[in-house]
């Protein structure tokens, strides 16, 4: 037996997953509360104790290789800056999200003294400084480097802007911890996010883990390899593309519905389908992640209400508008009432269904691209911004609210392409797969070491929930 132990230090739970690589099989999973305030190992030990109980006595966890990912202690918090909001600023944001970061602020154009104060108070783990295509605008990034050089708080700055003035930027930031890599948008509308993402991961490994007190866990573990969302991203990419020996599922989307935020992933090119459609805006990454900070089942239930409206939640839940508002307020202040927990009263269950359906719909709509119809002298034409995901046929769902709900199919149905909003390019018809045992992050970690094993386990464990 070749035993591997995969650990996800989540913001709330520390989840452990034991895998037998030889048999390509999942042996068991367990979870305990994350203990970042005291010693992160306490939570881990508790989870491992629970895991031992369900594993055969012959399995010796001590001998296992251990790999971990983490979103504990606030995750990887990043602030980014670029020049034009829809161009380098957006490219920087996309790159950071794809690297698994929590992007707390995006700046564009020239930073001001006020912005500097805000940056001081945000205390990011990494600041990503971009702006200008290669050979393009220099003034903005130079100005911003000069402003950042006055910053008192110490955080690493990752420089990924116009290469023509990278040296000058470094000189302006002398004395600070600065990393440099290729431009995130070297040519107009051309994304180059991988070098930035690799660098972010490197900084995360070497710096952030220590700074967050997670290094105590390090002695026991071969390495905290990446932020949890990056692990999920790796799992989804593997599941979509497959390996040399196993086929993947093809283009897919994934939704992670949480208590405070909702993450959406798509693994698809999403190019225009019609001849009369013109693609506009920044190139889209094949592996794309978006995070909706205002959409979540508990802390952000108010955000779902604001986005969907009372009437819609009432219609979805069968409750009256008054009941909806009252219950949303209740769940926002009682964040420990978990969706789908036994003994939940019927009204709350109805609200949770409506919240989940509206949350997934809102998050998927924001993630997917859209069409705009333009009347030209030769007839109607279409402008596409973002990805066309209408032909994506697989959807993976994870997150407590959605996997414990018996109506997952109905929740998903609400979020798919609809004739009512024909210009929102969401999937028309999907096979639903449920991550019932929360293995995705673990499989993303394993994907690094043994992709075939990770893929085989995902194909075995993800529960097919119909089309």
């Amino acid at each position, binding site marked *: 037996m070749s035993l591997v132990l995969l650990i996800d230090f989540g913001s709330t739970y520390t989840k452990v997953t034991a895998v037998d690589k030889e048999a390509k099989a999942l042996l068991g999973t367990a979870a305990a509360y994350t203990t970042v305030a005291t010693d992160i190992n306490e939570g881990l030990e508790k989870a491992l104790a629970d895991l031992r109980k369900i594993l055969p006595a012959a399995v010796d966890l001590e001998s296992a290789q251990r790999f971990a990912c983490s979103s504990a202690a606030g995750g990887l918090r990043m602030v980014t800056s670029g020049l*034009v909001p829809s161009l380098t600023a957006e490219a920087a944001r996309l790159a950071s999200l794809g690297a698994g970061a929590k992007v707390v602020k995006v700046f564009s154009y020239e930073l001001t003294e006020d912005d500097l104060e805000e940056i001081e108070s945000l205390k990011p783990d990494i600041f990503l400084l971009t702006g200008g295509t290669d*050979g393009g605008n220099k003034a903005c990034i130079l100005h911003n480097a000069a402003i950042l050089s006055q910053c008192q708080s110490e955080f690493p700055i990752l420089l990924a802007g116009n290469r023509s003035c990278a040296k000058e930027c470094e000189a302006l930031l002398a004395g600070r911890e600065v990393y440099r890599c290729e431009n995130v948008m070297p040519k107009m509308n051309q994304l180059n996010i991988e070098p930035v993402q690799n660098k972010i991961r490197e900084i995360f490994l070497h710096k952030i883990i220590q700074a967050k007190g997670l290094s105590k866990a390090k002695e026991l573990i071969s390495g905290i390899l990446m932020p949890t969302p990056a692990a999920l991203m790796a799992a989804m990419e593997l599941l979509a593309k497959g390996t040399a020996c196993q086929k993947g599922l093809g283009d897919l989307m994934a939704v992670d519905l949480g208590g405070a935020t909702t993450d959406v992933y798509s693994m698809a090119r999403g190019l225009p389908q019609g001849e009369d459609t013109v693609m506009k805006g920044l190139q889209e990454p094949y592996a794309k992640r978006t995070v909706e900070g205002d959409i979540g089942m508990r802390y952000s239930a108010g955000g779902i209400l604001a986005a969907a409206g009372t009437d819609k939640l009432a219609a979805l839940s069968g409750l009256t508008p008054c009941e909806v508002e009252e219950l949303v307020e209740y769940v926002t202040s009682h964040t420990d009432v978990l969706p789908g927990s036994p003994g939940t009263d019927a009204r709350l269950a109805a609200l949770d269904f409506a919240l989940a359906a509206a949350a997934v719909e809102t998050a998927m709509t924001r993630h997917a691209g859209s069409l705009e119809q333009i009347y030209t*002298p030769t007839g109607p*034409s279409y402008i596409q911004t973002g990805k066309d995901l209408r032909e994506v046929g697989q959807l993976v769902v994870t997150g407590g609210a959605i996997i414990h709900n018996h109506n997952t199919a109905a929740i998903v149905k609400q979020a798919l392409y609809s004739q009512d909003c024909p210009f929102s390019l969401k999937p028309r018809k999907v096979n639903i797969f449920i991550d019932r045992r929360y293995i995705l992050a673990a499989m993303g970690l394993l994907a690094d070491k043994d992709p075939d094993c990770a893929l085989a386990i995902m194909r075995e464990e993800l529960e097919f929930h119909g089309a």
Partner: protein
Amino acid sequence: MQGKTLILGVIGADVHAVGNKILYHAFRQAGFEVVNLGVMVSQEEFIEAAIETAAAAIVVASLYGHGELDCRGMREKCQEAGLADILLYVGGNIVVGKQPFEEVEIRFKDMGFDRVFPPGTLPDAVIDALREDLQP
């Protein structure tokens, strides 16, 4: 003109792609860096591309007769975006019907375009104008 960047595109709801490609190759051959935004380009797209790439000129093409509507206010937007001095060129079938070109030219120059090219202009004429206007 080595290294000078031009932003090129067909403005508005215009989908004429052939002339756009010819201009792109001609300008490249003449030594310019060309950011070709293709067809159906909005004023904002031209301007944002010019900011990010520190372009020296924006060359707007229009073939379908609505150029006057599409180009209105573009210079003002450039000024607002910090590109007050950028060269703005426009050319093609830029107005409805057959109108005396002298009048059309005046109208577009009043709108803030530095050069206005009539239908049938060859790329070389635009390249010569660019070389002249972009002299250091």
